[in-house]
């Protein structure tokens, strides 16, 4: 049994094998692997006795359930209007400049992925972003450079 299969078996034990268990199981795999590979989806289909196409169709609906390979740290920067108004573009440029990738890409060393996301509910402390599940607000280009340097040590 490979690590993906054992992870999925654990998740199935924890959340059940019903249709309602699908989302928590998908989330569990993404939490550890950062994305859902073809292999993961097939194993989930097998474990939950669901058609593979159903698993794929459900997963691709949700923005956080990525099926393309993602880095260890997924940076999600808000692009909705309130953050836009408060300098999100400069912050985004600073990130792109520092990591040498554009939006939608992953660094070659597999550490960072950069995506834009919609309103994070932090409009009063804009601009805001998530790195995995951590929340960062009141961003400026300097702040974000400092932050990313810390992450580069991890």
């Amino acid at each position, binding site marked *: 049994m490979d690590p993906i299969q054992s992870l999925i078996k654990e998740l199935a034990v924890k959340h059940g094998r019903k249709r309602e268990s699908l989302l928590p199981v998908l989330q569990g795999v993404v939490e550890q692997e950062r994305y859902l590979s*073809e292999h993961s*989806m*097939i194993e989930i*289909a*097998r474990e939950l006795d669901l*058609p*593979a*196409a*159903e*698993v*794929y*169709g459900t997963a*691709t*609906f949700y923005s956080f359930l990525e*099926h393309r390979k993602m880095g260890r740290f997924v940076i999600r920067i808000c692009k909705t209007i309130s953050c836009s108004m408060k300098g999100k573009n400069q912050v985004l440029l600073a990130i792109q400049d520092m990591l040498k990738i554009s939006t939608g890409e992953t660094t070659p060393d597999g550490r960072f992925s950069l995506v834009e996301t919609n309103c994070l509910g932090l409009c009063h402390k804009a601009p805001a972003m998530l790195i995995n599940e951590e929340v960062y607000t009141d961003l400026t280009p300097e702040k974000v450079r400092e932050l990313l340097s810390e992450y580069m040590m991890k």
Partner: protein
Amino acid sequence: MTQKIQVNINGFPVDVKPGTTILEAASKVNVTIPTLCYHKDLCVAGNCRVCVVEVAGQKRLSAACATPCEDGMDILTNSLKVRNSRKHIIELLLSEHNADCTKCYKNGKCELQSLASEYKIMTQDFIELLPWKDYTIDMISPSIIKDDSKCIRCQRCVRTCAELQGVNALTVAYKGDKMKISTFFEKPMNDVVCTNCGQCVNRCPTGALVEKNYVEEVWDAISDPEKHVVVQTAPAVRVGLGEDLGFDPGSRVTGKMVSALKRLGFDSVMDTDFSADLTIMEEGTELLTRLKKALKDKDPDVKLPMATSCSPGWIKYIEHMYPEYLGNLSTCKSPQQMFGALVKTYYAKARNLDPSKIVSVSIMPCTAKKFEAARSEMHDSGYRDVDYVLTTRELSIMIKQAGIDFMNLADMEFDRLMGESTGAAVIFGVTGGVMEAALRTAYELVTGRPVPFENLNITPVRGMTGVKEASIKIENPLKEWKFLDGVELRCAIAHGLINAKTVMDAVKAGKASFHFLEVMACPGGCLGGGGQPIPTNAEIREKRAKAIYEEDAWKPIRKSHENPEVQKIYKDFLGEPLGEISHHLLHTKYTPRQRF
């Protein structure tokens, strides 16, 4: 006695049962509300929004297919608000659609095209969205072409594949402007669990899902003076073909079909029903052999229940989903493939023809047959046994192209050698038919008497119920079959792959007590196949079934073993059922495939 409620449709009062939708209520007063995502065979979706109507007192318009009537509802199906909205919806659909109709396979038969024509959409004010999208056209499958540029995302295909067939090869993926109908990881249909049954093709309103067509290839073969083109026609074709050529559903057009095929230029027009009778001989013998091994020899390795193997959609399904049960399938090829193997051997020899110059064509109600003909093992004749498979729809295309006045054709008869058939053969086209044909022969073989049913009509196996079970008690059999005395021969019949799943799960759980299983992948059996005329619904399939049983009733010979051409082929060529030549030409192997 349920309380009835009253609603007003365009001012006309109509009484309906509570729970009736506005769409259903409207049809009662002869008001047709246009629809796209709605289909009688499937659950209500309510996503295309074409059927919106105005309900007095409501701010927004309501989808007629999804809104239940309430007492006193005042409904307008053609108010200005409704018409303007509907026009917008059609224009929106056209803006994300490859509307190059003159180059489309569904030209003239497309539901979106009909709507646009009805509403006289003569300008496109909205911006074309297709250039901004990257869509794929999947032409890899030998049976089905999926063209995403024509998809209107009504989800009929997804619902069909999930609810009717239980295969779930198609799904809805992504959201927003990226939402599309897809397979697992957008793989070609040929690379996923698609069984090629074509039920999705039958229900797609546009040209997004169509059969792979071989009309031009067949025209080329017919026009080639070097080639001898033989055609075989499946039982279900003769009760469906008429629908595309001006006849009502349930019309028997056998004689005209033969006549038309001759006029198209086929060198020999023969009948798949012949090889259906042959299949009964081989499969009947196989079943009795297995029963003997199980009940007389007490052989523990015998695989029972034995399942029929003439439906290639069913074959691919069991190969993917229940590969451990491949041994339960009869090793018999389908009638199409038996015929194909014999055309380039038995027929070629009898007519003194060079088999390499024979082109073997079949007309099928089926899209999966195209896949079957292309299976790597189907060349036991030494050549490809069946070169081209045309659906019923493709045949009607050829007939129209040739300018044949089909309605007024005189009836003609099939050519000899492989053109004679019995009533047992023609019922292969309806669910329960293979079972009935097999029982008529097997019972008589074992007891020496015909089946104990009036006029040989084994009614317990007939009908549109998803899973049927029936049994026949064997009493006073012939000496050779003494071990069957008192045995209740139990049968199960399933049609539509979702019912195949029910049966196979029962087999897996050890709860199956039957000996013989007939499965047809398509609802209704082959008469509802993926290659039959569109539209399809339960009513139409019932009519086709009735026509098939009529064909059976009027046949002079009703049992497969009494077919003189079948008796001849055993005498002159095959020897005996399950003999060496039969084994080589008429039996096959299966391939276990991935479930996911």
